[in-house]
């Protein structure tokens, strides 16, 4: 395994509890594994309801699942 400390990636996962429907977390699994295989240090930040804006500022990449109307409404108010 390459110990490449040159690169690290912080992925922000927006509302995993509310916005995950079918297989959305597969995107996170794939990004995480691909980083690991390339020796890139990866951190996944779970940004659920009322997360701190500073946490979002630390993210290099943001991911969010699609969800349904009800959940989208809750998330829209939180954002």
């Amino acid at each position: 395994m390459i110990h490449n400390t040159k690169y690290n990636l912080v992925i922000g996962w927006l509302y995993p509890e509310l916005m995950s429907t079918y297989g959305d977390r597969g995107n996170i699994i794939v990004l995480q594994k691909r980083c690991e295989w390339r020796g890139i240090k990866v951190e996944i930040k779970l940004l659920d309801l009322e997360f701190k804006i500073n946490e979002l500022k630390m993210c290099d990449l943001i991911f969010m699942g699609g969800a349904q109307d009800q959940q989208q409404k809750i998330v829209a108010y939180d954002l």
Partner: protein
Amino acid sequence: MKDFKPAFGRQEILNVYGKKIQIFLSKNPTSLNESLKTIVRLNAKNLLLVLNDRIPDGRDVSWIWDADTEEYISKFKNILISGDRAFDMALRLKYSSKAQNSNVKSQNYSSKFKIIENLEEAVFDALIATLKDEILYILPTYSAMLDVRKILTGKKIL
């Protein structure tokens, strides 16, 4: 209780060519997790996963990403993958591998599992790989389970 016979495809045990086969219908994240958990507890060595995307199964196979395959996949000796969406399942397993391979192009992390698209060939290949005192565990989606039973028993039930 010992005379209880499960409904077809649900933990059903079959004997074919002197080999024991047990089928665990696995059609959504929860049933796939429970099937894997149960057979790992039974010290399963041989696994055949069959993923179909026909109407009775649901056309969307993205549910496989919600199953916790990474927790169980390292426990098996032989893993064979088949079905209409065999490559989707193979990809899920590739991303379930604990191996942190530095060489991205290396095939090492996928050497533990084999893909045979044709179900009949897959079933017989899995049977050959299963030793006499071992059990072959088959985890199919619904339509795949019907096909597996037809191959193994020669009977059509639906």
